[in-house]
């Protein structure tokens, strides 16, 4: 039978606040185990939560950017369950009254453009991390992450394919990065996604049995897992089987989803309003303040890159995918205005290095050695004829590995292009003298040999000969 998939995504995005949501501990990733903890995030007897205002600000920022209705009155709720990484035995979250309601994310896929509606965005605290198998048969718990603020962003089941799911996630991550509220790192877990997947015969409206898929640690994993799950469900139905509502885990090595431990009882989280926290009331004035501080969003920036810099749509798309990359590009253009050349360098070599070095973390390329001004200076050297494009590649690699400026590198290594005619002619004469046979062949009509002579002259000049000049002079000499 022909099926269509019905997919809803739940994203957990860790917020880039300095401190945790209900205590003053640092929210930074990567500290030694249990260093960023205090009586509050350890759930010590008698401790009480105090809300970090910045968390609400970030949630409202996200809500405004995604077109949500910002609830003027929302409430904290306790989600009760036992697990060692949850020290209070409950997670402080939001339930019946979340801070953001509705909203949408517009995506583009091969199938065209589509609007994915959001159900809600709510705030909650992250849990700690259980560490198994590292210390014999004991399990350990690291509470550093416990209490780090999260946004849970829940979509409506508007997604119909793995490709759409990927597009939605990328768009959402880009948006959060632009808002500077989440670094979007899936590997480190600061941007996590669970998928609710079901299938139904195409053309029908009733929902099929929903399966929740977890443990997807990259965009690729999400796409592969959803694709797998759609196929699996269709096969079960086609073979006359029945699907059960369950949670399945993606196994990235074997590329399959597996059922989690089946629970004897349906989980009952016994949500109720947290009596330790007051209802959250935000004023219109405050929401307006947050709205005013929202930076330029990806769609607007993409359009501006086309109109202001004359870039092709494709370039604008690639450059604005990540806010840090777009920022980098604009800084470079401000330093030297050759937008298309700089776009080529950023889309090519800069993004290649980012991929190679796994600089997935948003905002990291601000810290790497090739500052945008240096890239601009290098392109300027190229445009002025000071270096050749071949040399430029070498200079770029040198900047990445040594952190020196392009002018420094060119000067130190004597990489200045040779445009001086007598010097190039001398090298040409040398080559012609050394390869009399090949010159005769060329003159007899074997045009293909021209490249050989260019290579030889370049070799003789250590690659520094101005290629254009070289071509002109060589052609003249050979045909003389």
């Amino acid at each position, binding site marked *: 039978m022909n099926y269509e998939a019905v997919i809803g995504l739940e994203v957990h995005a860790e917020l880039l606040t300095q401190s945790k949501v209900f205590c003053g501990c640092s929210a930074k990733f990567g500290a030694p185990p249990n260093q960023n903890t205090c009586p509050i995030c350890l759930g010590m007897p*008698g401790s009480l939560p105090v809300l970090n205002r910045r968390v609400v600000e970030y949630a409202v920022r996200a809500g405004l950017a995604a077109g949500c209705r910002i609830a003027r009155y929302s409430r904290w709720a306790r989600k009760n369950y036992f697990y060692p990484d949850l020290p209070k*035995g409950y997670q402080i979250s939001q339930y019946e009254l979340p801070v953001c309601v509705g909203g949408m994310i517009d995506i583009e896929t091969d199938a065209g453009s589509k609007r994915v509606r959001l159900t809600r965005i709510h705030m909650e605290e992250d849990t700690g991390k259980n560490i198994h198998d590292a210390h014999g048969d004991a399990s350990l718990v690291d509470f550093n992450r416990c209490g780090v603020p999260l946004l849970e962003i829940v979509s409506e089941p508007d997604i119909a394919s793995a490709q759409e799911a990927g597009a939605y996630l990328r768009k959402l991550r880009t948006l959060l990065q632009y808002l500077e509220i989440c670094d979007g790192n899936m590997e480190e877990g600061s941007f996590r996604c669970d998928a609710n997947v079901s299938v139904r015969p195409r053309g029908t409206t009733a929902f099929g049995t929903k399966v929740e898929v977890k443990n997807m640690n990259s965009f690729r994993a999400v796409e592969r897992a959803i694709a797998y799950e759609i196929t699996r469900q269709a096969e079960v139905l086609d073979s006359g089987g029945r699907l059960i509502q369950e949670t399945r885990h993606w196994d990235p090595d074997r590329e399959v989803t597996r059922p989690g431990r089946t629970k004897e009882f349906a989980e009952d989280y016994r949500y109720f309003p947290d009596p330790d926290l007051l209802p959250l009331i935000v004023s219109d004035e405050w929401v307006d303040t947050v709205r005013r501080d929202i930076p330029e969003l990806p769609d607007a920036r993409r359009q501006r890159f086309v109109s202001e810099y004359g870039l092709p749509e494709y370039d604008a798309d690639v450059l604005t995918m990540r806010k840090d990359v777009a920022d980098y590009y604009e800084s470079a253009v401000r330093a030297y205005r050759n937008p298309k050349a700089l776009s080529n360098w950023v889309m090519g070599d800069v993004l290649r290095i980012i991929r190679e070095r796994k600089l997935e973390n948003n905002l990291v390329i601000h810290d790497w050695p090739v500052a945008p001004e240096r890239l601009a200076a290098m392109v300027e050297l190229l445009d002025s004829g000071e270096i050749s494009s071949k040399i430029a590649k070498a200079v770029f690699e040198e900047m990445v590995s040594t952190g020196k400026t392009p002018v420094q590198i060119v000067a130190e290594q004597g990489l200045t292009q040779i445009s001086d005619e007598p010097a190039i002619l001398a090298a040409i004469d040398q080559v012609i003298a050394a390869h009399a046979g090949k010159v005769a062949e060329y003159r007899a009509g074997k045009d293909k040999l021209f490249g050989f002579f260019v290579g030889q002259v370049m070799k003789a000049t250590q690659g520094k000969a101005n290629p254009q000049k070289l071509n002109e002079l060589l052609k003249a000499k050979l045909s003389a």
Partner: protein
Amino acid sequence: MRQSTVDLHSLTIEQAGALLAKREISAVELTRATLERIGATEPQIHSFITVTEEVALAQARAADERRARGETGPLLGIPVGIKDIILTKGIRTTAGSKILGNFVAPYDATVTRKLLDAGAVCVGKTNCDEFAMGSSTENSAFEVTRNPWDHERVPGGSSGGSASAIAARQCLGTLGTDTGGSIRQPAACCGIVGIKPTYGRVSRYGVVAYASSLDQVGPMAKTVSGCTHLLQVIAGHDRSDSTSVNRPVPDYAARLDGSAQGLRIGIPREYFVEGMQPEVEQAVRAAVRILERLGARVSEVSLPHTEYAIPAYYLIATAEASSNLARYDGVRYGLRTAESDGLLAMYQRSRAAGFGTEVKRRIMLGTYALSAGYYDAYYLKAQKVRTLIRRDFEKVFASQDVIVTPTAPTTAFRIGEKTSDPLQMYLSDIFTISVNLAGLPGLSLPCGFDASGLPIGLQIVGRPFEEETVFRAAHAYEQATDWHEKTASSFKLQAASR
């Protein structure tokens, strides 16, 4: 010298404060006298789970040094006891539970810090019902506290140790907590003064939570004035407790003028119920007549939803408790049973071994009330009832300044009398629970004795954040009577010789 040492422990906070201020006694002398008294009486009374002798003497010496440097203050050098549900850094804090039997608090509760900053001397941690769940202190995992007026009877609860310590003159002031009557009912049972402040008046930070929307810390002492000094220090906004309210704290002691002139007193007809001890009703009615003589205008009023207070309370409080007590899982601190076969077994065995019967009963009740399918019928409905109860009070307070009622329907009952019947035990708080549900300040002070020589308590309830009015009324009554001057042993001697 010997004579004066014997007398020191019997001083009120204000008497001791005056002697300390005049340098007639030192904090060390006063603390030694208190510790000696504890040593002599504790084997019979069992007010304390932990006596902190060394800590107390060090704090007393520090208080004397502060005074020598010119510092003053009504609590500087005053020995106090702190309910063992309130965290005291470096000192074991058990909440009366086996599950926290070895728990040494890693930080001070805000009220602890405020008391110590004011120079109070902590002589020990007082006994209480496990996690403050109970009305007799019999639910403590450690010991049964005896009522100093009759050792066969309970001191009330859950702050029973805090009340008996005052009545047995083991220290001058104590802190208790009150979720449904846990300060006022034991104060009534032990013939002392105790006040549950308005919800939000005192920080809950560092107080082991039972029911977060109802819990409130309050002082207990021999006199109204003693309570004003303690509340003065512990009250006020705390950034660490989002439910504490940022309102100025008035000068409570300054408002005590011994008069009830112009005070409008409401007497709710629902608070004189069938089955209550006749002597309690008589004593309370007599107290009202005295207040009338002191210038108060008395009217009968109605709080029509009173009968729903106990069921509403036992749904809301247990629901919150079921969640608040989830953290005692044996993972990070507290009791963990030795051998456990997997995570679930570790939870189950640790909690089965660590919690007592009443705590388990309330966790189960609360878990049930919050469960899917029952939430609306129980928890949500109880919250609606709570709103109705609050409105009852608002209506009465539109025309009255305070409400006067009995604190408890009976005087102290016998040890073991109600342990097998939880519902009978729950009825001990029938007159105090509404006050917690409405978040109001409520005070209990002695207003007489029954035929067995057991103290009777008078409850005075005020508008939110109007503790000073409650104190003024209570003080006026106290000045006109001598109940507070009777002490447990002397009265017993009189009663026995009669």
